[in-house]
C-alpha cells in the first residue's frame, strides 16, 4: 500500500517505447458507481496521472429552469443528488421562501428537519456501505439497504414517492404527516441505532478495512478549502464548517448537535465522519420528533405556512370553490410574477453546501438559476488525491468522496 515499498525495475531509457500504461476507468465501470471516465496513466499499479471526463449525463437543468415556474423546478432538484432528494427539494423551497419572504411555522421547520436528517442518513449510509463494497465487504451494503428501505417508506407515506421525492411545497408540506408516518418513524428510530452500531462494528476497527482506507486519498485542510470542499469531505480534513450551524435554516438553531471532524482527510476519516454524522442525525431526528409531539390540538394540524399565493389550495376547495380553482391553476401554470432581485441560499446537502443562486427579473420564471453542486466542485481534486497511490486505492477514494453523477453533471 505504501508507495515507497514498491519495487521498481529500472530499464535503460528507450528500451521500450512507453514506460507507462494507459487505462480507461469508466465511463461505465462497475467500480465507478456512476457514469464517470478516468483516463489513468499507470506505472505498474501506481497512478502517474489521471484526467477525469464528466458530463455524460448532463441534462441542462439550468437552461430548463429558465423556462419553468418555481414549482416545476422542484422535480429538477430531485435529480441532482438523488441519494438525498428531500434535502434538495427543501433547499429549493427554502430558497423560494427566503426570496418571497415567506415565514414558515415552527412545526413545519421541525417536520422538515426530520425529513432532511433522514435523507442525510440514507445518503451517508449509501456512501459508507459502498466504501465497504469497494474494499471487499459486500455484506454490510446488502444489510443496511433493508434499513434504508425504512426511510424510503417514510418518504412514501409523506409524499407518495421514494427516490425522486418532489417532497413539500413552498411554505410547508402538501399534507400533514399521518399517524402511519409517525409510526414508521418510531419504528425506524427504534430499529436503526442497533443496525448502525452493528455496521460500525463491522468496519470501524476492522483490520482489513483500516489497512485499505487509512492514508488513501488524503487531503490537508488547507488544500481542501482551496479546492472548495464542503460537507463531510471537508470536515474529514479537520474544518468544522457546516451550513446547518453557520447559517441555520429551518430552525436548526433549536437543536443540540455536534459537528464531527476528522484529522487527516483520508478515506478512513471520511468514513468515520459520515458514520458520526449519522449518529448526530439520529439524535436530531429524536429531538425534532419530541418537539413535534409537543404541538397539541389545532397546533398539531399546522403543516404549511399561510401563503395562498404560493401554496396550492386544498383539493376539496379546488373542486367546489371558483376562487380556489383559479389559484390552483395560477400556481400550477406558474402565472404568479416573482419579485425582482437576486438571492444566494445554501443548505447542508448530503455532500456539502448545496447552493441556489437565483436571479429574477420580475418574470414568472427565474432569469437565471445556478446550482452550486458540491460534488462538481470537489471532484476536481481527485487527481491530486490519488496520484502516486495505487489503482485500488483510487477506487476506494472515488467512492468515499461520495460522487453522485446526477449532482456532478447537473
Amino acid at each position, binding site marked *: 500500500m505504501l508507495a515507497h515499498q514498491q519495487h521498481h525495475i529500472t530499464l535503460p531509457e528507450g528500451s521500450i517505447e512507453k514506460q507507462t500504461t494507459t487505462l480507461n476507468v469508466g465511463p461505465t465501470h462497475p467500480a465507478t458507481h456512476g457514469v464517470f471516465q478516468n483516463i489513468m496513466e499507470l506505472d505498474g499499479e501506481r497512478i502517474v496521472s489521471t484526467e477525469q471526463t464528466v458530463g455524460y449525463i448532463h441534462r441542462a437543468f439550468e*437552461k430548463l429552469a429558465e423556462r419553468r415556474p418555481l414549482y416545476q423546478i422542484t422535480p429538477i432538484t430531485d435529480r441532482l443528488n438523488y441519494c438525498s432528494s428531500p434535502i434538495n427539494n427543501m433547499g429549493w423551497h427554502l430558497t423560494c421562501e427566503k426570496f418571497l419572504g415567506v415565514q414558515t411555522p415552527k412545526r413545519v421547520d421541525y417536520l422538515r428537519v426530520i425529513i432532511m436528517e433522514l435523507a442525510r442518513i440514507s445518503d451517508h449510509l449509501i456512501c459508507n456501505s459502498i466504501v465497504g463494497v469497494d474494499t471487499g465487504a459486500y455484506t454490510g451494503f446488502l444489510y443496511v439497504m433493508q434499513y434504508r428501505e425504512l426511510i424510503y417508506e417514510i418518504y412514501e407515506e409523506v409524499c407518495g414517492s421514494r427516490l425522486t421525492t418532489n417532497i413539500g411545497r413552498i411554505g410547508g408540506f402538501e399534507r400533514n404527516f399521518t399517524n402511519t408516518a409517525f409510526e414508521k418513524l418510531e419504528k425506524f428510530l427504534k430499529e436503526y441505532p442497533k443496525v448502525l452500531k452493528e455496521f460500525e462494528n463491522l468496519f470501524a476497527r476492522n483490520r482489513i478495512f483500516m489497512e485499505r482506507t487509512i492514508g488513501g486519498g488524503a487531503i490537508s485542510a488547507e488544500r481542501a478549502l482551496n479546492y*472548495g470542499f464542503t460537507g463531510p469531505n471537508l470536515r474529514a480534513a479537520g474544518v468544522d464548517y457546516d451550513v446547518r450551524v453557520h447559517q441555520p435554516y429551518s430552525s436548526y438553531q433549536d437543536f443540540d448537535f455536534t459537528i464531527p471532524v476528522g484529522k487527516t482527510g483520508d478515506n478512513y476519516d471520511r468514513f468515520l465522519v459520515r458514520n458520526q454524522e449519522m449518529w448526530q442525525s439520529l439524535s436530531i431526528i429524536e429531538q425534532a420528533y419530541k418537539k413535534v409531539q409537543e404541538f397539541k390540538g389545532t397546533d398539531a394540524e399546522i403543516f404549511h405556512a399561510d401563503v395562498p399565493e404560493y401554496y396550492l389550495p386544498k383539493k376539496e376547495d379546488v373542486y367546489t370553490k371558483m376562487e380556489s380553482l383559479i389559484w390552483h391553476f395560477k400556481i400550477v401554470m406558474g402565472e404568479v410574477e416573482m419579485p425582482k432581485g437576486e438571492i444566494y441560499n445554501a443548505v447542508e446537502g448530503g455532500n456539502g453546501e448545496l447552493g441556489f443562486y437565483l436571479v429574477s427579473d420580475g418574470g414568472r420564471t427565474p432569469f*437565471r438559476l445556478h446550482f452550486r453542486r458540491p460534488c462538481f466542485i470537489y471532484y476536481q481534486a481527485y487527481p491530486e488525491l490519488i496520484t502516486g497511490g495505487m489503482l485500488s486505492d483510487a477506487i476506494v477514494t472515488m467512492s468515499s468522496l461520495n460522487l453522485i453523477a446526477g449532482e456532478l453533471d447537473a
Partner: protein
Amino acid sequence: MALTNQDIQNKLQEKFGDLVSNFEESYGLLSFEATAANNLKVLQFLYDEPSLQFQFLTDICGVNFPDDAGREISVVYHLHNLTENVRLRFKIFVPVAAPDVFTACNLFSSANWMERETYDFYGVNFVGHPNLKRILNVDEMDYFPLRKEYPLEDQTRIDKDDEMFGRG
C-alpha cells in the same frame, strides 16, 4: 469585532475607489461590481487583506443580459470568509464580443472547473486558464447554450415525427 458589510464596503472603496461600484445588500448579502480588468486584484485583495480574509470560493457562475449593450455577459463570484462567517457576491461585466476575464485559478484551485463550466455555457474566455475547454457539453458543440440567444425548443411545435416519441 464582527465584520459587517459596511466595513467591507469601506475597505474596498478605500483601496479601489471608483473601480468598485453598485454596492447593494440583498437578503443580508453584500453585492458589488468591479471593472473586468480588475477582477483578480479585487479577489487578491479580499483574500490577502487581514481584516477581510475571503479565502473560500463558494461559486463562480455566468449570467447573460442580452439587452445590456457592452455588458452582456456577467461573471458572478460568491466568496465566503469562513472565520467571520460572512459571504459576499462580486460581479464583473464584459461585452459578448470580447468576453475576456482573468482566471482565478492561481488563487483558488476550485476555480478551475467552475471557470470551465462558465466557459462551456457562456463562452467566457478566462485568460490564463490552464485547461480551458468544455466540461459538461460535448467537445464538438459550437455555441454556448446558456446564452439567451438560444431559446429552449418551442413546446408546441408539431413538426416532429410522433412515432419517434412513442405517440404515433
